[in-house]
């Protein structure tokens, strides 16, 4: 079962939920794998301290021009829809950060003067988490290199690492927002848990996230963090849209302080284990309903 944890608004508690849920499941003997797919700002490792066993670079293809063969005909610059190649005089200039790796330039070069070579834009780290007495579980982290604009190849590589894995449960910590990197992270999930807070910003961004999930043909449930803060707009919206609220986490100073220190709430806050256990039952029920209806 693959569960993605996402949100429209940032800072609502995705990582808190993902890290504590994974640890709770591991403690109960469920085989679980956690993916940190928020590749721009991956934070799960700050709470789980994995031992990183392997690092695979994420490489994208960019054109390299063979000057011996190039006749400066300019076809490559003409066919590049992303303005990643220009011809200045008789020199072909490549701007690798604009390249989408579509391959048009190399395929259409009449002189076969363009080959594609790899350029690293991120890394996927394979780590193992040993949380106290609990059984170990894998944490896979996608990390976008600083200064790179395009997050999607690293997100895609992080998700692609799931091929052939055999854990019962895969949890994905997705980036905030509703655009391309989020879509790459949540696509293929059995259920998306949308984390929000009961404020006007939280509600507004939740509605966008729900639209995104529905546009992808996925089902979602809602977790409300700092539930006793703000107003009842989120609850009214969920009721009107038929969205199940699977968790209400209180606005508790102890929770905020434990998070600030980088501690798991499971270890710092009494009663959280039971709360997450109940949450998990709701998630499983919602995910299975999806399988029946689809």
């Amino acid at each position: 079962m693959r569960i993605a944890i996402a949100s429209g608004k940032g800072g609502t508690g995705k990582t808190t939920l993902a890290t504590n849920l994974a640890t709770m499941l591991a403690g109960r003997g469920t085989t679980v794998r956690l993916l940190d797919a928020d590749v721009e700002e991956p934070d799960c490792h700050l709470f789980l301290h994995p031992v990183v066993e392997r690092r695979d670079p994420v490489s994208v293809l960019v054109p390299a021009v063979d000057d011996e063969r190039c006749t400066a005909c300019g076809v490559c610059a003409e066919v590049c829809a992303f303005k990643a190649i220009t011809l200045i005089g008789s020199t072909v200039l490549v701007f690798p950060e604009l390249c989408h790796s579509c391959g048009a330039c190399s395929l259409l070069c009449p002189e076969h003067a363009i080959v594609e070579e790899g350029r690293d834009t991120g890394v996927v780290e394979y780590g193992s988490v040993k949380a106290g007495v609990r059984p170990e579980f894998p944490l896979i982290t996608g990390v976008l290199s600083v200064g790179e604009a395009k997050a999607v190849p690293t997100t895609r590589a992080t998700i692609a690492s799931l091929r052939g894995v055999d854990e019962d449960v895969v949890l994905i910590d997705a980036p905030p927002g509703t655009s391309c990197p989020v879509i790459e992270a949540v696509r293929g999930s059995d259920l998306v848990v949308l984390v929000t807070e009961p404020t006007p910003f939280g509600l507004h961004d939740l509605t966008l996230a729900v639209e995104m999930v529905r546009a992808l043909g996925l089902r979602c449930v809602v977790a409300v963090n700092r539930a006793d803060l703000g107003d009842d707009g989120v609850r009214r919206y969920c009721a009107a849209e038929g969205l199940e609220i699977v968790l209400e986490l209180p606005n508790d100073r102890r929770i905020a302080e434990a998070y600030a220190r980088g501690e798991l709430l499971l270890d710092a806050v009494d009663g959280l284990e039971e709360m997450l256990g109940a949450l998990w039952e709701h998630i499983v029920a919602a995910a299975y309903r999806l399988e029946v209806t689809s």
Partner: protein
Amino acid sequence: MTPPRELVVISGKGGTGKTSVVAAFAALAGGAVLADCDVDAADLHLVLHPELGQEHPFSGRRQAIIDPDACTACGRCAEVCRFAAVLGTPDDGYSVDPIACEGCELCRRICPAEAIRMEPVVNGAWMVSETRFGPLVHARLGVAEDNSGKLVTLVRNEARRVAQERGLPLVIVDGSPGIGCPVISSLAGADLVLAVTEPTVSGRHDLDRVLQVVRQFRLPFAVCVNKADLNPDLGEQIAAEATAAGAAFVASVAYDPAVTHAQVAGTDIIDYGGRAAAEITTVWEAVGDALLAAAERDVHDA
């Protein structure tokens, strides 16, 4: 006339209070152009209640369309597409997945039957609205859409245009979380970058990453530690690191439930009042000094 100055507010981590700070700055500036560049989750309008301006469609890309009547189902398009955007089989014919297509046009170029055309995809809208504090340039990116970087650039350019047109001296940009394409698009050429963070291990980690990007662009920056009393030791550590990295100033704002109450009441924190309002006012004064220093440096360099 001197061109307008540009203050860009970012955070690395989401949910640190960028938008609340920007709304407060808008109130304090009394006559700046506001640009909501968090086009993925634009929230500034929720506290500024603008009178909405005319909507302009935004097209960030083009998409391939296969004409089923002209298509001979040779499958060449599906072979060359690197984005797995061409769906179908030789028996059923082919079509393009509009979400997966990146608009590279390679399929159109190689189609032997000339059955493929490119059409602009309208994937967002932008507008210039009027708030009680001045004009707001904001946008909406279609859900599940790409090219937020292009829309961010458009919003910033429009904000600068509006500032020049109306003789307003400052553009305040509400940026997006993260370090990727929308953030990079919101940074280029800024006069001052203010990073709003929080004293949590993730706030510190994410700030470090986004400040590396800011320094690659060699932009002057300052840091505001929000909810500073949540973990004073970590707050001080973040402040020390930011100062060592060359921050123009480091300010802090204590956690104040009034910030959330103001948001629920649909107003800015300055209007609502309280401790955070007073502290953000101090941050705003430091921003003014840093912008002035940047302007003087420019005059000196010129």
